[in-house]
């Protein structure tokens, strides 16, 4: 394959209640090594995955949120978050641990349509 694939990782699940966002993140870190065109998008409860202030010590669960911060080191810079999902959950860009671009629904629809593959987690 000479062409670069456009792969979107769509994070839709809240952290800790289920493992999808954490294991989805693990897959993104590996993908970074393949020099593809990776986009990560946080919608619905997925926006909670990058919320500031998590402390899982009392719950006895591994805190995986710091790993999201290393995405930039992996040259994965296309991070988007759905404005409506954030607002419904009382969150603003200041509440996020990564510098994701806040976009509207139409932008997400457009981004999805541009992809070769959309992987939901």
């Amino acid at each position, binding site marked *: 394959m000479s062409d670069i694939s456009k792969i979107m990782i769509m994070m839709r699940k809240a952290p*800790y*209640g*289920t*493992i999808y966002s954490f294991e989805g993140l693990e897959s993104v870190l590996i993908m970074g090594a393949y020099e593809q065109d990776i986009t990560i998008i946080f919608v619905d409860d997925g926006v909670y995955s990058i919320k500031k202030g998590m402390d899982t010590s009392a*719950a*006895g*669960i*591994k805190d995986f949120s710091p790993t999201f911060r290393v995405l930039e080191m992996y040259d994965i810079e296309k991070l988007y978050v759905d404005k409506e999902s954030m607002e419904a959950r009382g969150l603003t860009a200041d509440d996020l641990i990564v510098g994701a671009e806040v976009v509207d629904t139409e932008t997400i629809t457009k981004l999805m349509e541009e992809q070769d593959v959309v992987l939901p987690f």
Partner: protein
Amino acid sequence: MKFGVMVQEGPYQHESSDSAYQFVKAAMEKGHEIVGVFFYHDGVINSTKLTDPQQDDRNIVKRWSEIGEKGVDLVVCIAAAKRRGINDDVLAPGFRISGLGQLTEMAINADRFVTFGAS
């Protein structure tokens, strides 16, 4: 009081097993008797000794085995286990495989029966 517990989900994928463990631990610390923990549905996957999580993560199976070593009856449903590839060969210490009658007996013998599941 006598507490019974059911775990309906496997480890790591859902938080149910974590919650059940924390609840059982807190109940024991308060002096309650745990008449048993019944692992049903995907909950049976909490009982495999082959589980090998990352070093910096909790070991959910081992934590349950420790509860078992304290004398708590950890019962794995045989019908659910067979569907999911759990048998005596892979069973972690402290667990035993038995039938659904054990769930009924726990429900009868417990003053409080708490279910931890998802969907």
